[in-house]
């Protein structure tokens, strides 16, 4: 399965949520690859706490691979290389967790047939080895996004005729505010958005929309006001939520498209990291955060749950 992680704006929590999703999927027993396609600022190394890879690898990362400068992309076994001791352990029943880092000092580049071919080969190779491959795209309509859409278009994936077996998911991450909802809708449906481009590269609109789901990130609740909230605040939060829900629905980003919601997690305000159950047991992370990542992983993993929301 290929999962693409997109967002309109930077800083939405796309990478942190995707890394946590990868981690949770590996706990479910899946062999997981994380492909850092945020060529301009690859951050997965930092989130998995891999020393010397906080901002990508110095040699032969995905950026060089797509450019044709490396015949094989660099890869790291996250559990072997992470500095975080508790993450090093592979719990019984869990699968592999492998990071394909971006390059340190990489940058965006132009779309060419060769780049698309390289991406196709890459996806083909990782899919043969892993159950799930998460591709973290840069924010906005980046070349990473365009390359990816071309590489998964039905025109080029003809060998997998069995449509039901071709498991692709497209996640759109956005924060839960007015501007972010509007921006996310724009990225998906706008003139220069993802959906029109998907159609340009050969998808039927309905087929592509079957792949797309949203993830609402860092969603606060009344506790954000402080320990004690006034009745007015509670009411206001409910109203604002309703307003956002209506806005999202109006932009076709409603409940039917929703894959999951992550709560505002204080730990993630300080540090981009994997939230382990251990963090919850130590009473650092909110139980709801771990649950949200877990729920998202379970949903992504289960075809019926994914389809039949």
């Amino acid at each position, binding site marked *: 399965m290929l999962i693409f992680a997109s967002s309109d704006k930077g800083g939405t929590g796309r990478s942190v949520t995707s890394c946590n999703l990868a981690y949770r999927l590996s706990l479910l027993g899946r062999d997981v690859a994380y492909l850092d396609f945020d060529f301009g600022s690859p951050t997965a190394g930092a989130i998995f706490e891999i020393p010397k890879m906080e901002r990508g690898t110095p040699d032969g990362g995905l950026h060089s691979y797509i450019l044709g400068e*490396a*015949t*094989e992309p*660099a890869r790291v076994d996250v559990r072997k290389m992470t500095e975080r001791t508790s993450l090093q352990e592979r719990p019984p*029943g869990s699968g592999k967790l492998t990071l394909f880092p971006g390059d340190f000092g990489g940058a965006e580049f132009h779309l060419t047939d060769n780049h698309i071919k390289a991406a196709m080969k890459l996806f083909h190779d990782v899919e*043969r*080895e892993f*159950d799930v491959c998460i591709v973290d795209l840069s924010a906005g309509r980046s070349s990473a996004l365009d390359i990816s859409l071309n590489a998964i278009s039905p025109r080029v994936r003809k060998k997998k005729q*069995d449509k039901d077996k071709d498991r692709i998911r497209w996640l759109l991450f956005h924060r839960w505010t007015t501007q972010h909802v509007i921006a996310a809708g724009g990225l998906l449906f706008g003139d220069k958005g993802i959906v029109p481009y998907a159609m340009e590269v050969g998808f039927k609109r309905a087929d592509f929309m079957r792949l797309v789901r949203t993830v609402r990130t860092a969603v606060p609740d009344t506790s954000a006001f402080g320990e004690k909230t006034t009745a007015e605040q509670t009411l206001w939060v409910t109203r604002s939520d309703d307003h956002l829900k209506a806005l999202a629905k109006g932009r076709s980003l409603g409940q039917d498209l929703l894959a999951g919601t992550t709560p505002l997690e204080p730990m993630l305000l300080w540090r981009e990291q994997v939230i382990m159950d251990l963090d919850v047991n130590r009473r650092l992370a909110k139980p709801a955060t771990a649950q949200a990542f877990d729920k998202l992983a379970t949903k992504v993993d289960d075809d019926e749950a994914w389809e039949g929301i």
Partner: protein
Amino acid sequence: MARSDAPLDSPAKHPPAVVLGVVTTDLLNTSEPLPLEAAQQALKLLPGVAADSHRHPVEQAVSPDLFYGVDCRLATIRGAQPRAIGTVRARAVLTAGHVLQGSARVDVVLDASTRRMPWSYYAACTGTVEAINKADPADLVSGFLKTPNGSGLLDLGGIGTQVMALLDDIPQVDGRADMRTVASRLRWAVLVREGVDLDAEVVAGSDGAFQVRMTAPSELVPRIVAFCEILALHQWLLAALKNAFDRAGRSPKPMDELDPALSYLGHVWNPTAHLPTEIAWLWEALEHDAQLTWEWESTVTRVRDKLSLLTRKAIEGTLHKEFL
């Protein structure tokens, strides 16, 4: 010395100082193994040249040699990395219609010339690169074995993968192998010494894959290639079966892991089938230390046991339902 009116000295006249090779192994991405006739067709990678093949004891087809031009650096440990120009020899090997190998190798000639010659000079001597800077042969062997990748370096693994990829596009290959597998890479290097007996050492590299370091006369190279391909094939088989068993332990559908693994790979193990006699001792020494065949057999038994347990449970489940 080459005279200006004479053809340039061909590098063939210079014996190689070292021979370097990489064997990449993975499952051919197709749902059913190719019958031998189809395999022969598939591996006819050059027009007019038939693939080599044998039917017994395990079906195998071998493509003709293909040549890839390179202008690259050679890895070293101590010295400067010499620049080398020439062509790499590569072939595809398909065993039991399903396990595919890209096997690439190159003869490295030292001290033949100190400047870049016209391409025709290199093209005249296929399968050879000439280093135009000084280098110590033993250092080239160590450098090659210890440096898996690097930009600008000779990339035999990449060339092997390219040869393998040629098979992805043919109609007989449906792109739907039912098994998750990990490609493996075996690196090998020979320090060439004429008139000596073969001396060899097999060690596990940083990625767990075997590496073979040898001192041998050049006439033995074809047999060394065959040995390394056999070793790579069997190390991959073992790893692939263990991976399937491991995955079955955590999969909601364990049968879907074990069934294809057994039917794709269960019958392929036969390391001594085509082992060249001159080099058979090396395999025996390896068996003595690493007990690969024992490990294979015990893994096959575990897979079978688990499969029959699952089958029994499934049958009991249906009977139970009928009874209710």
